[in-house]
């Protein structure tokens, strides 16, 4: 089944593009897509989020395989920090590690499957209706304290029980929307109010339109100020 994918993003308002700490990777030829959200209270979070999404589209792990998937990426992350943390606070922060969510989606024949740690979300839209929301399906479930994947092994002890997986059937013209938490929370609030946020997003045809749309949501207070990422996967007819 042929698919096309676009990825749009915007940094938190007040931050520069270089301070954006989400990450995404799309590999349409392998039918793998991922978004991740580096936690803002940790340092070198973007690098960690990028390692996770790039790793996912190379080698989509199962829930049981996630631990072995993460271990070599932690070594790469640690290698990237060497020599950078010289001040006492940078050294302490590096020891705490970086943290990130991960949402990875794979399409295999006429099925899709998804794996998630944290609060980045997948929405499956079919024939003008939301068929599935994963791993969160109510706006009230978002908190400031999600369980996330850490770049240091000792902080991941309790995470492996929090890995969520789901799969479903895929039909022609389905849309799979992957997004990081702020946009996902807006999406669920809209859906809960009986509106059709997927239709609003479907109208956007360029990154510029996406940025303008995000600015407008933020200005109206509908969207929490945070980095925003959207990966839009469309299944062919």
């Amino acid at each position, binding site marked *: 089944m042929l698919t096309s994918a676009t990825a749009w993003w915007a940094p938190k308002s007040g931050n520069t593009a270089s301070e954006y700490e989400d990450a995404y990777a799309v590999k349409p030829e392998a039918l793998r897509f991922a978004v991740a959200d580096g*936690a803002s*209270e940790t*340092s070198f979070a973007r690098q960690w989020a990028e390692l996770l999404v790039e790793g996912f589209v190379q080698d989509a792990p199962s829930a049981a395989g996630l631990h072995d998937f993460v271990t070599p990426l932690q070594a790469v992350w640690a290698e990237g920090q060497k020599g950078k943390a010289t001040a006492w*606070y940078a050294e*302490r*922060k590096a020891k705490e590690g970086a*943290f990130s969510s991960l949402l990875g989606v794979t399409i295999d024949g006429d099925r899709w499957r998804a794996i998630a740690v944290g609060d980045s979300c997948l929405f499956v839209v079919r024939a003008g209706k939301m068929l599935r929301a994963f791993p969160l399906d109510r706006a009230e479930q978002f908190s*400031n304290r999600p369980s996330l994947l850490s770049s240091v092994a000792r*902080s991941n002890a309790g995470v492996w029980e929090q890995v969520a997986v789901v799969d479903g059937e895929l039909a022609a013209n389905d849309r799979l929307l992957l997004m990081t938490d702020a946009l996902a929370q807006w999406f669920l609030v809209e859906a809960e109010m009986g509106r059709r946020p997927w239709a609003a997003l479907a109208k956007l045809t360029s990154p510029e339109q996406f940025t303008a749309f995000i600015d407008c949501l933020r200005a109206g207070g509908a969207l929490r100020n945070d980095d925003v990422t959207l990966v839009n996967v469309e299944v062919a007819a």
Partner: protein
Amino acid sequence: MSYEAEISRNNPSAFLFLIDMSGSMTDPYGNGKRKADGVADAINKLLTNLSIKCTKSEGVRDYYDVGVISYGKRVEPALVGELAGVSLASISSVANHPARVEERTKKEDDGAGGIAEVKVKFPIWFDAKAAGSTPMCEALKLAHTTLSAWVSSHAYSFPPVVINITDGEATDGDPAVEAEALRSLATQDGNLLLFNCHISGTTSDSILFADHEEGLPDQFAKLLFNMSSVLPEAIRESAGREGFKVSEKSRGFAFNADLVELIRFLDIGTRPSNMR
């Protein structure tokens, strides 16, 4: 709505610590340590944690202005080293200018079921120097002077948080009056928050975010409780999620409690639940 301003580099918040360094602070408390030494350790730990909290890949981001005022023989800004005499400094200049950095060992979970002893750098900005009486009113007045200028230049910021740490007996009048004046300072996001930490020599159980004065061990604890701000909803919810017992009447009052706990609830963004 109040207490909802995002803490950012454009709109930083402020922490001002008022530290009782009167003669009575040389008395021991719970664990046999002198109160003054316990407080100095806590302040250095708080400044350490705040610096680390604001550290990003490129350095320390100025999400806060921070100051320490001690009161005892004198009432004065109390940071030592390069920041001596400064009443409020940006968190990046605090992080970059400790008076000295000591090395301490601490025990840490090694992630494989064992305990490892690790060396950590322990920066020092503040030393215990306890002597004299307890001019708490004067300290609250100096806090008022320092922060009235700050609130007028930071109208859109999350309001400043003042944390007063004392063993309770003001010797220069009724601190409730000065506390009320201090709490009346405000940004557009709300009134200044005054938290009080009572360090006592008694061995009563520690209390954090008390919601009524009955059961508090003495009149000084009750006075400090009544001087403390009621916790804003966001902080109350955050504390509740962490397992603390809080109600709508909970105040920023701690009795013989871990001071470091008191400011964990002021967020600057996503904090992973598995982050230590």
